[in-house]
């Protein structure tokens, strides 16, 4: 177990550059990391607060329907889906294809220990998500139902087991995707397509379980209908909900036993087939029969852009994490058109609400645009190859532009499609239509430029796993959360100022983009040179 601890410790030390900060002799760098950590703790507490408020709102509503336990069921199903979806994209890369494998596998460590350590790392990440969702819901439920003291230790113990089964299922899917993709030369692209297909498939399946609240049946029980929806999403939800809400020790033990057995069985199976799976996942298809054909040439900026696109699509975790916002944007636009009749009939009864929703459309699109920021980790993703681009005869600003262009490649089509669909569905006036296109487009530029600035401030080149950059780096957090928080604040402002607010937002974002771009041209070029 000591070796399991050592492997886990080595992995967690890379989180947010903690170890680098501890051992850095430069006091400025140390304090920068310290302030960043404090910032994230505060942000985490804020998000936990938001989660509490959300749970309280939902909890009271379900309480009124006579089923406060539906809150537990809902959050259990939600955190399980989150764990499943996030593990599909990263399970395989953490468990099998980390760059530190050559070092670890050469050490006198049992494969079982390596597997257990890597599973603990995946579990740790999922537990983090589960706690954010489940902890507030559990407390709200306890307050609503005046739960006895024994509820608290049982409920908290049970939260620890929530991520296990979805995490194992997600890892299995992740391995299968890796094995299937391994049969192709460009296996990363195949992996990306399969991960996206699974992710959206699972989400669509989850949303497909719904109920009709306007059921004409007089005996229709809305409380039971709600809870059965969550029970259908994930079978273990029922067992978990009954175990916690009714403090049913039998279900508690059964849930823990199922989670433990699934975990142990999976570890045993992986241990048995570890080398075979590792060979499947890490071996590359090489034909070694290349015949030279005529090569085409491109201008340097175009060549840099093509290289960035290749880098982007070669990383499934990078694509899945960033393309999500663009895909959601298009889906939201399609849903808006499909449910046009329902929306228009709802709005005919609430004209004030229609006015508010319509004026907020450009801002809602901008929030999703902020989620699609590939630029915020694009410098870190260069890793140890950064020296190549720095030694080439290209202007640093062109390197930045190529990175921003990737972000725009994803955002601009998504904005144009969704803005068109929202305009068709909501039929706003000409001014709002123009703003629906203009604000998100300018916001796309802003997030791209802001992403590069964020990455220059918080570069991370010494990673062994792309997940560490895409999901756990400070730049990724600052880039995406910064853009989203700003767009939410601006949305609130537009909510108060209406049309005038949109003009102010457009002016502010344009100005901020120009200022940040000027910053990149001066400070950014210097800063880029200092990163190594």
């Amino acid at each position, binding site marked *: 177990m000591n070796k399991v601890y050592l492997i886990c410790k080595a992995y967690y030390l890379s989180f947010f550059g903690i170890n680098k900060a501890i051992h850095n002799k430069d006091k400025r760098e140390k304090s920068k990391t310290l302030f960043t950590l404090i910032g994230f703790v505060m942000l985490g507490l804020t998000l936990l607060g938001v989660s509490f408020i959300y749970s309280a709102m939902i909890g009271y509503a379900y309480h009124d329907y006579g089923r406060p336990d539906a809150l537990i069921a809902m959050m259990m199903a939600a955190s399980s889906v989150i764990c499943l979806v996030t593990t599909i994209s990263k399970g395989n890369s953490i468990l099998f294809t980390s760059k530190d494998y050559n070092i670890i596998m050469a050490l006198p460590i049992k494969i079982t220990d390596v597997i257990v350590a890597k599973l603990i790392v995946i579990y740790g990440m999922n537990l983090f998500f589960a706690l954010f969702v489940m902890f507030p819901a559990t407390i709200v439920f306890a307050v609503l139902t005046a739960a006895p003291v024994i509820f608290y230790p049982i409920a908290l113990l049970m939260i620890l087991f929530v991520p296990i089964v979805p995490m194992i299922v997600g890892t299995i899917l992740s391995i299968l995707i890796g094995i299937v993709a391994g049969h192709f030369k460009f296996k990363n692209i195949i992996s990306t397509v399969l991960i996206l297909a699974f992710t959206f498939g699972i989400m669509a399946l989850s949303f497909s379980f719904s109920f009709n609240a306007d059921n004409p049946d007089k005996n229709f029980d809305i409380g039971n209908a709600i809870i059965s929806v969550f029970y259908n999403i994930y079978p273990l939800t029922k067992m978990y909900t009954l175990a916690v809400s009714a403090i049913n020790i039998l279900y508690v033990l059964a849930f823990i036993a199922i989670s433990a057995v699934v975990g142990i069985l999976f570890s045993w199976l992986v241990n048995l087939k570890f080398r075979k799976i590792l060979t499947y996942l890490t071996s590359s298809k090489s034909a070694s029969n*290349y015949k030279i054909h005529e090569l085409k040439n*491109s201008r340097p900026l175009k060549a840099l852009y093509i290289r960035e696109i290749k880098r982007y699509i070669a990383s499934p975790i990078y694509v899945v994490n960033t393309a999500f916002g663009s895909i959601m944007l298009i889906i939201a636009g399609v849903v808006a058109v499909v449910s046009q009749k329902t929306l228009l009939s709802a709005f005919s009864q609430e004209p004030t609400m229609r006015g508010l929703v319509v004026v907020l459309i450009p801002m809602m699109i901008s929030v999703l645009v902020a989620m699609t920021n590939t630029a915020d980790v694009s410098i870190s993703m260069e890793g140890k190859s950064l020296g190549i681009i720095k*030694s080439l005869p290209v202007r640093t600003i062109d390197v930045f532009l190529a990175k921003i262009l990737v972000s725009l490649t994803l955002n601009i089509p998504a904005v144009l499609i969704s803005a068109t669909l929202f305009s068709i569905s909501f039929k706003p006036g000409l001014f709002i239509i123009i703003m629906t296109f203009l604000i998100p487009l300018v916001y796309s530029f802003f997030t791209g430029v802001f992403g590069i600035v964020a990455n220059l401030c918080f570069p991370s080149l010494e990673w062994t796993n792309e997940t560490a950059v895409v999901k756990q780096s400070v730049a990724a957090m600052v880039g995406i959360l910064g853009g989203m928080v700003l767009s939410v604040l601006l949305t609130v402002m537009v909510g108060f100022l209406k049309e005038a607010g949109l003009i102010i937002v457009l002016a502010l974002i344009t100005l901020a983009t120009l200022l940040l771009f000027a910053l990149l041209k001066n400070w950014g070029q210097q800063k880029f040179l200092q990163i190594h």
Partner: protein
Amino acid sequence: MLRIESLSKTYKGGKRAVDNLSLHIESGDIYGFIGHNGAGKTTTIMACTGILDFEQGNIYIGGKSIKDQPVECKKQLAFIPDNPDLYEYMTGIQYLNFICDIFEISKKERNKTIPKYAESLEILDNLGDLISSYSHGMKQKLALISAFVHSPKLLILDEPFVGLDPKSSHTLKQMMHQMCENGCAIFFSTHVLDVAEKLCNKIAIIKNGQLIASGPTDEVRGNSSLEDVFLEMTDDE
């Protein structure tokens, strides 16, 4: 071709990696740069290639300052790092084509030179494969081709012989000689003193960031072997 004037580089935390180093490498030189691990070789090389910023001194490539005209300087040089961490998401041919695009090599020229160098380094058959499937030596060969395709006036290499098989090592030495005959200047770091002694017409020895000897190989080594001279000069006792 390459003039380093009073170069000093201090890393964050106060470590002075290079201290007031001056060196002049002329066209046609094969200049070997030797020193212990951590002596400041890679820092000097990274500063020369524009990868690393420095606070004191200046570096001129073809008379242009790397600080003031980095793009113009880089157009004249090719750099091969010690560990060729190339773009693993590209195939070999995609990588070479990318380098040609950046150096604006004509279609005709690249279609002529790439097969030539790939064949002489015996990697032509593998150019269609992803770089991630390459061995260390194959990556090194690809990095060498990417350096040769744009006919640089200055070639800077950090430990170029590490990972190469004997035949490729021999080919590389021949290529280096050929480039020098065509007026290219070559500046490379190495730990292999035998290679440096046989290949280089000039040698520089660095210790704790300071240049302790430089000049024609014959003058630096005198009547001893380069190994003896190096050990004597760098021995702290």
